[in-house]
């Protein structure tokens, strides 16, 4: 096997030192001469028509430079998914949730802008509001968007095989319902944007905390009516995204609008409360699962009905509900599946992409039900998962092509590491273990044009410059890309510089979502590096009178494989290259798109969803304090098939972070509303886990080598967020015999459950 020098190593992120010193700049750290600061006036009602916005008092406040409402800007909607566009930068006729942006104010400082916000008076005609998707789909329910009379803005119904027939053949059929709550991404960096306009040439530049610079550029152009080639989006360092920055917000549009109108730089930074209320959240979802199984636990058919609470706008609606559907077909072999899913508008904060994107909700329901079924039919829950595990290379009912798959092994390894055989069902009351499995795509293939490009330059001095469109949001995408390029060119990491996610100078990229960055942008960089390598190595091969395919490179040297003496330093090679009057720097280009027959078949046809799929099983051990109902997660195991990791330390980091996210979803976090108003929009009240809550973590690497990924890599980072929550809730069931169907599982729910169980036990005692 090929020896690797940079790839596969535990290398710190190339920008970690700058971050450790406080020098790395995030959007809010940027300062421009004459910069103005903006704030939003937000709706105080859940649903209503805007009758009048009186900005006169705000406008005369000293220091205020501008106030606009939805009427002052073009009547254009934006949206991350083209067919789902439904949102105005500022509400135009109607407000649809508490917090909807109604007007924007800019002033010389934030304090003045805040004061001005208090002076804007908005008059509404209040309309009846609806807060639950199951209510919103009823006849006569308030209509959130007039053009969607039933409030169902996206839906999917798909059947594979013949579900009815398979149910008829099943030994058992079970139906259970579940609910998964609203969860906020809660990145520590609040969303921000800074825009600047150059009136000389009409160039508009925006620095934005975004995961999707190119989508943002397009939407800015179409909503503000500016030619796309005049808009440049630059992503500074982003302080965490988790999907919450896979969208555009009022701050982006209004910063740009004011910058152009006032000819001064304008910055908008969201308050923490706005991050909670006005960005995105994981869709709350009601899911009913009906499953037919054979006596041995083999799944014969599943029927699923899901209602996602979309909140006031679409965001990723059609994609989210599709992902939720297709990914039920993996990691288990489900030959007969009927899925009906609805994205429903309500007068609440908007759902969007969040780590796992529509899949965690479904996984919670399915993994929970699997455990319940295992118990009901007397099959071991881990064994049942192995029995149903998909195998690499087997034909897939939805047309997925699964080249590598370590799922069955991951179940066994996770079970072993948590001590399944000794512990499951055998620990003292209050303690238990649970397990859950999942799979995730390495980027979505068949969804519009999703390619990544890369340009690599090798300078005369042996310095490597990489241009990539990939958006590093803290996961380390830029580091991974640099590693790939360094490996291919035989240079150490320190020789590589990267400029990424600047739409003005970087090649096209889809953005950071669907866990596709390493595979897509990594492959593009690999191709670009190979282009450079080919040009230089051709020249070197001639000088060394060797075959180009026999050359290897490392540590700034190129030589003939097997004869270390027949070679030259990179510097000598470049020197010779220069004196032969070859153009420098050597420039290579690469572009990569996942193989797919038809680029936009996602909603309509079966087909391969992704170039590759990661697989994982997570196991939890928990302790429930049966007096207070409090759950402590003692240990989490992740057995993970992510192909060949390019940087195992970064993969671990993703995994550890997603365990925290999963614990939050299982036990702590709930973006709950009172009459449509989010009641806990602060870190204090939202309460995601601190260092005190973190359990012991163990990870087991399941070795596979993917043929399509760069150096055999597959996705890592989103998939591991899917199974922790069901694993924990399954462990609670093992610990105290209570089956929870709703997230999060709170101490109050546990105490109530225990009380009921006790009552019942006493009840049956007395009757028998």
């Amino acid at each position: 096997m090929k020896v690797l020098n940079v790839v596969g190593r535990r290398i710190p992120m190339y920008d970690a030192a700058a971050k450790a010193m406080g020098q790395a700049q995030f959007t809010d750290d940027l300062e421009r001469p004459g910069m103005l600061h903006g704030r939003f006036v937000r709706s105080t009602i859940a649903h209503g028509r805007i009758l009048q916005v009186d900005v006169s008092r705000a406008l005369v406040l000293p220091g205020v430079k501008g106030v606009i409402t939805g009427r002052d800007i073009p009547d254009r909607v934006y949206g991350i998914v083209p067919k789902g566009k439904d949102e105005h930068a500022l509400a135009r006729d109607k407000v649809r949730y508490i917090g909807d942006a109604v007007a924007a104010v800019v002033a010389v400082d934030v304090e003045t802008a805040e004061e001005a916000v208090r002076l804007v008076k908005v008059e509404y005609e209040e309309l009846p509001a609806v807060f639950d998707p199951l209510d919103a789909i009823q006849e006569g329910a308030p209509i959130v968007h007039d053009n969607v009379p039933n409030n169902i803005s996206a839906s999917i119904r798909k059947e594979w095989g013949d579900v009815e027939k398979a149910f008829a053949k099943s030994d058992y059929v079970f139906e259970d319902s579940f609910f998964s709550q609203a969860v906020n991404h809660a990145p520590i960096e609040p969303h921000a944007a800074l825009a600047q306009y150059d009136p000389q040439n009409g160039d508009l530049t925006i620095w934005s905390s975004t995961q999707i610079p190119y989508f943002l550029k397009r939407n800015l152009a179409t909503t503000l009516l500016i030619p796309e080639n005049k808009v440049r989006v630059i992503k500074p360092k982003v302080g965490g995204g988790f999907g919450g920055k896979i969208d555009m917000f009022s701050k982006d549009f209004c910063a740009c609008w004011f910058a152009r109108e006032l000819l001064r730089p304008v910055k908008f930074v969201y308050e923490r409360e706005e991050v909670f209320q006005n960005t995105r959240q994981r869709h709350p979802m009601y899911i009913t699962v009906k499953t037919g199984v054979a006596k041995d636990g083999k799944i014969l058919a599943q029927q699923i009905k899901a209602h996602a609470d979309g909140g006031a706008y679409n965001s990723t609606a059609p994609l989210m509900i599709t992902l939720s559907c297709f990914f039920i077909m993996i990691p288990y072999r489900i030959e007969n599946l009927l899925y009906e899913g609805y994205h429903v508008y309500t007068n609440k904060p908007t759902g969007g992409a969040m780590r796992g994107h529509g899949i965690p909700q479904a996984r919670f329901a399915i993994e929970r039900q699997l455990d319940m079924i295992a118990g009901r039919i007397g099959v071991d829950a881990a064994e049942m998962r192995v029995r149903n595990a998909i195998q690499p290379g087997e034909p897939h009912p939805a047309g997925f092509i699964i080249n590598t798959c370590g799922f069955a092994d991951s179940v066994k390894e996770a079970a072993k590491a948590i001590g399944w055989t000794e512990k499951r069902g055998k620990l003292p009351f209050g303690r238990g273990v649970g397990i859950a499995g999942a799979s995730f795509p390495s980027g979505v293939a068949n969804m519009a044009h999703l390619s990544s490009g890369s340009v690599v330059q090798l300078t005369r001095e042996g310095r490597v410059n990489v241009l990539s469109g990939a958006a590093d949001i803290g996961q380390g995408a830029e580091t991974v890309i640099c590693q790939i390029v360094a490996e291919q060119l035989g240079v150490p990491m320190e020789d590589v510089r990267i400029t990424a996610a600047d739409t003005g100078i970087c090649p096209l990229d889809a953005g950071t979502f669907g866990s596709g960055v390493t595979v897509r942008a990594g492959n593009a960089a690999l191709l670009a590096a190979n282009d450079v390598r080919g040009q230089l190595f051709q020249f070197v091969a001639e000088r060394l009178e060797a075959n180009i395919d026999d050359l290897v490179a490392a540590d700034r040297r190129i030589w003939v494989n097997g004869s270390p003496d027949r070679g030259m330093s990179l510097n000598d090679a470049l020197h010779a290259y220069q004196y032969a009057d070859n153009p420098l720097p050597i420039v290579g280009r690469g572009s990569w798109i996942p193989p797919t027959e038809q680029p936009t078949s996602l909603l309509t046809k079966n087909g391969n969803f992704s170039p590759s799929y990661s697989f994982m099983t997570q196991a939890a051990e928990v302790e429930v304090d049966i007096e207070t109902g409090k759950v402590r997660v003692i240990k989490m195991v992740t057995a993970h098939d992510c192909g060949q990791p390019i940087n195992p330390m970064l993969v671990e980091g993703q995994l550890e972070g997603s365990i925290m996210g999963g614990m939050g979803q299982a036990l702590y976090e709930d973006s709950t509303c009172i009459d449509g108003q989010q009641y806990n929009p602060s870190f204090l009240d939202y309460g995601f886990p601190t260092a005190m809550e973190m359990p012991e973590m163990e990870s087991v690497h399941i070795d596979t080598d993917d043929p399509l990924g760069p150096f055999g890599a597959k996705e890592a980072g989103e998939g591991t967020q899917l199974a922790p929550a069901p694993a924990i809730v399954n462990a609670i069931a093992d610990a105290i015999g209570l089956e929870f169907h709703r997230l999060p599982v709170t101490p109050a729910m546990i105490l109530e459950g225990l009380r009921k169980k006790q009552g019942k036990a006493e009840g049956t005692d007395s009757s028998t």
Partner: protein
Amino acid sequence: MHLPIFTHRQPADFAGVVSALTEGSGAKVLAGGTDLLVNMKHRIEMPETLVSLKKVADIRGISLEGDATVIGAATTLKEIRQNSELERKFPALVQAAMSVGSYRHQAMGTLGGNLCQNTRCRFFNQSWQWRQVRSLCYKVGGEDCHVIGRKHTCFSTYSGDVAPALLVLDASLRITGPDGPREAPLSTLYSGEGRTPVTLGRGEFVTAVVIPGAAARGKSRYEKFSLRGSIDFPIVGAAVWRGDGSVRAAYTGVDRAPVRASELEAELAGQELTDASLKRGANLAHKAAKIAPTSVHPVSFKRELMGVLFVKAMRDIS
């Protein structure tokens, strides 16, 4: 989120504090600021003047007067947490101090600020913007209580961790004001009323907490229930003390003031402490409080926790 405008005073002694507090109409003491400044950012408290304790002499530190322990009001919770003498004599106090917020809050937050902190409610501890959705609540000058849907009443909940510990230790306060110094039992600091939970008169402030020597002759314990092991306010907190045939219990997070559980205490007075008697006491715990749904945690759950935490705490000192 910007602080509203105010005047800042930094007096050097008690007299200076009193005169600064009585200057205008709305002056407040600023100690660590970890409660007050958040409330000011939310514009639920808008004092005209902040009187800082930072430079005030003789208000910080832990000392002995006879067998009584005196803790200056501006002593930080961290100083309390790290004091081994306090830990030996009054474990409940140290446990309570080290359960407040996070270590950052303990380094900044003071004993006086912890005791005098404002009450809390999900409709009250919110930003100005957030509160525009409903009518002004009674506590910030409006009419309505959104928690119980009635007018002219406020059920906001006292949630400080340290008060219950000091209540079971029978602590008293040294207070200075325009009429000079006075000493009063800690329990009298609390009005039991949500809108103005603290009874200090105009120009008055707390200079020290006094714990009687007798308190060290019993065992004490503070048991806090919150979801996270750091940062969170208590959902319910229970302090217990036992000595010379009696048991004391006090709670936070359950009512408009920290409360002593007198029914429970009476039930157990002079009793042998067995599983059964503790259970009997625990069942009476909730009688001490009128719990309102000021947080997402169900009232019934909090009621149950009162008993549970009592038993847990007692088990630890048996």
